């Protein structure tokens, strides 16, 4: 009887299938070996980024300009000496309008000596001529539509599911596009590693249930930090939004920052 199925045919096909499976296994082993060279990870497990949504908020009325947060950030994240900051404090001094000028708000004088790390000297305007003066802590604004993520040519920076904007130092080529793209000036090129760096919300701390270093040391609770997906009783973030009228920095740019500021003046940029 002729069926069209010969022994040679079946054996051949079986052999080919077996060879295919063997190649796939070999390829997988080879892939693992290749990746062991290129990718190594000795990281702790047990933290699921999809189950958190971290957020920071700033209450300008409470900031006393002591600079502890700036110093703590530098220590915690090994930020090099010099004009490199992941967070910094700006001092706004708004002088009184000149009599007869009929302006309501004069232009603010902004300074941040050494990021405000060692406090602030006497204001640039005599005390009697100051209309308003306050401190504004700055950090990564955690934009919904981050320009820095969009411009990265190698995909080294990304929005994480838990709300941080991070940089993969292994992939960053240090081209500096993101530093130009950030409208808030929150990024810098680390002169030691030659990669871009920015506020990570102290990712190595929040994944272990600790507060970011700046929030930890802030003496006046001007920095509010919390997890939107796991609110605690008396949640500081919830209370912040209930008790304050908030604004974001540069809302006209459409970056939709997630960091909100309470008690902000129109002069703050």
């Amino acid at each position, binding site marked *: 009887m002729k069926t069209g199925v010969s022994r040679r045919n079946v054996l051949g096909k079986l052999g080919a299938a077996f060879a295919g499976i063997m190649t796939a296994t070999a390829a997988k082993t*080879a*892939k*693992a070996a*290749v*990746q062991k060279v*290129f*990718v190594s*990870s*000795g*990281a*702790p*497990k047990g*933290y699921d*980024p999809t189950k958190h949504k971290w957020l920071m908020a700033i209450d300008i*009325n*409470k*900031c*006393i*300009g*002591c*600079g*502890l947060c700036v110093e*703590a950030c530098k*220590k*915690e994240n090994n930020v090099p000496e010099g004009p490199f900051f992941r967070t910094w404090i700006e*001092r*706004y*001094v708004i002088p009184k309008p000149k009599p007869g000028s009929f302006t309501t708000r004069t232009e603010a004088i902004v300074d941040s000596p050494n990021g405000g790390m060692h*406090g*602030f000297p006497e*204001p640039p305007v005599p005390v009697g001529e*100051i209309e308003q*003066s*306050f*401190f504004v802590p700055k950090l990564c604004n955690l934009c919904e539509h981050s320009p820095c993520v969009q411009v990265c040519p190698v*995909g*080294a920076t*990304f*929005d*994480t*599911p838990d709300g941080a904007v*991070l940089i*993969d130092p*292994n*992939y960053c080529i240090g081209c500096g596009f993101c530093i130009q793209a950030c409208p808030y000036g929150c990024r810098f090129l680390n002169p030691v590693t030659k990669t871009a760096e920015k506020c*990570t919300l102290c*990712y*190595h*701390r929040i*994944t*272990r249930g*600790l*507060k970011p*270093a700046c929030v*930890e*040391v*802030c*003496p*006046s*609770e001007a920095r509010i930090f919390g997890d939107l997906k796991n609110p605690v009783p008396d949640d500081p973030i919830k209370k912040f939004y209930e008790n304050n009228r908030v604004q974001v920095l540069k809302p006209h740019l459409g970056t939709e920052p997630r960091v909100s500021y309470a008690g902000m003046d129109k002069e703050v940029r």
Partner: protein
Amino acid sequence: MPPQIVRLVLLTITIVGSYLVARFFLTPSSFGRYGWYRGEALEELSSRPRSFAGKKACEECHSDECLKLSKAEHHGLSCEGCHGVGQAHADNPDIKIDIRTFSECARCHEANPSRPKWLKQISTKTHYPGQKCTECHVPHQPQEVP
């Protein structure tokens, strides 16, 4: 099929094939776990060492001091804000905290017109110059007299 077309097809297959092989081997296995990036980068970034231990770690041994502080005006202050970085001390209590990382009272309480009005401020030039703050004030209980 004309030979020039065959050559072109073979060349295309070789280029596309070598690209696919390279992609298979070089794409990190965690790529795409959370998005268009290497998922393991998150774990790597979270495995960095810390220098601040946090108030909870201080409370484990210094609970009496923390309790005193929690009842006083300075209750919102973190230990490490004034006493300096403490992860090394928390890991090994024999290592003392570096006194150079301490912060002084004037850091927050020196008068400055930019500071909010609710904060108690003094000028160290006119407010008992030359004397130590702790001669009249208790840092943990600012309302008490030593």
